């Protein structure tokens, strides 16, 4: 069985069960997560859900990458991309 993956901006990124979107991206060497709707660069920062620096888009919701569990086939895009891109 191959490792489960999320789809990050269209590219498969593997994760280990239980891992957050944020640590999965970090392990794949993704340091810059794109931009938030205000145009600020997004990235892993506080790791505790307080700073809102790691926002990414899942479906039509902006979620903290550090708090949100990865799941197989989950479509995740940078926070400034259109919701359609995450569908």
């Amino acid at each position: 069985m191959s490792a489960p993956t999320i789809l990050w901006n269209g590219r498969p990124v593997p994760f280990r069960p239980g891992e957050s979107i944020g640590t999965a991206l970090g392990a794949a060497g993704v340091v810059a997560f794109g931009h938030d709707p205000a145009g600020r660069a997004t990235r892993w920062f506080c790791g505790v859900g307080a700073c809102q620096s790691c926002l990414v888009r899942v479906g039509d919701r902006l979620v903290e990458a550090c708090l949100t569990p990865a799941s197989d086939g989950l479509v995740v895009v940078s926070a400034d991309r259109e919701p359609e891109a995450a569908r």
Partner: protein
Amino acid sequence: MTVASVLVVGGGPAGLAAAARLAESGVAVDLVELRPALGGAFHRRPIDGVAPWPVGREGAKRWARLTDDLRRPRIRIRLRTAFLGLDGSGAALLDDLAAGRVEALRPDAIVVATGAVERVRPRPGWELPGVSTAGGLQMAMKETGRIPEGRILLAGNGPLLVALAGQMIAADRPPVALVEAGDPIRHPIAGLGLLAHPRPLLEASGHVLRIFAGRLPWRRATTVERIEAVGTALAVTLRDRAGRAETIEVDRVALHDGLLSNDHGLPEVDDGAPGRPIVARAGDCREVLGVAAAEIDGHRAAEEVVARLAGAPGADAAAARRLAHERHAQQVLARVFAPARLPVPVERLPRETVLCRCEGRTVGDLVDLVDGADAPGGREIKLSGRFAMGLCQGRFCAHWVAEAAAGLRPDAPAPLSGDLTGRRWPARPVSVAAVVASALPPER
């Protein structure tokens, strides 16, 4: 007679200790935790198949104790649930993150145990990708059992950096260097105070020994002046006590300048008017005293709530004495780690330095705003200047903005950090869809 109900916010040591003690007293407990697992920061749980990060003998015993005590009836644990705050009617609003729905509870009391957030001094470039807090790096390590690839620099001020460096060396992935504004080994007399605290002293000694044995460059009395992106790397300029600058290239920078209570938008301690819950706070969100104190304080808060529910005052002298002991340890550490030079006041940092990341507001923006004929107050700095107005609700900038504004206008009343953040719920961003989907019960 109906059983009293208490909402405990936060599944770290303070919240777990409070929940267990409350349940033991016959109270029905709802424990909400933002993350998919209990543990908090110190006792952060690893993902499946990964060994827990070593937390020392005391730490392992504490975690066993906290989780054993939790195996009681009458505790309902809700993971991935955010506490948004108390609304005007006294209802506690919870955001079920998995379902994307807000619901309301009407507990008789609330114990707020939301821990701490890190204090990160603004420096040019601190907002760049690749720069995180040291605690943020540590959380990723504890969750995954892995240290991110690349050259990592730890920098800032305080004992957490020493512990993190020691842990990284023990895991055979030492940081490139540890940059510390203080000069802890130059304070042997102040350090003697730690003899009253053998447990943290032993732990700290272990980390310091690892730092020396591992020949880690420990740049004491040195600060990070700026961080610049160079391709995919980060160029970090250091300034030592003699004023000499040096630039080193790394892949990641982890910053930390201490801890603050994580109490933004959370209800104040309250005896409970009719129709409104009693509110107590426990652990680092009440006073940053560390993990050992958090467990003591969780028990104390639970006993206080139980006493108040019975209409009795709730002072616990024994807990107060034990907390005073932990406070002394923190005071000694603060003296040992006192910065060797006064930090550059925030308002004198280069104009382009970002103060408020969410809104991209800089030192220059603040200087221009505050430099008018009339000094603006905290609310005005927020509303006209858009400082502390973004998604993090000022958790990482409000204290610096307030300090800088006070420094720029010594002639005017100093704005308070709370004036900038406001003191109202929601404690964190919530989607409109989640509020619309909420099923709020009628007022009692």
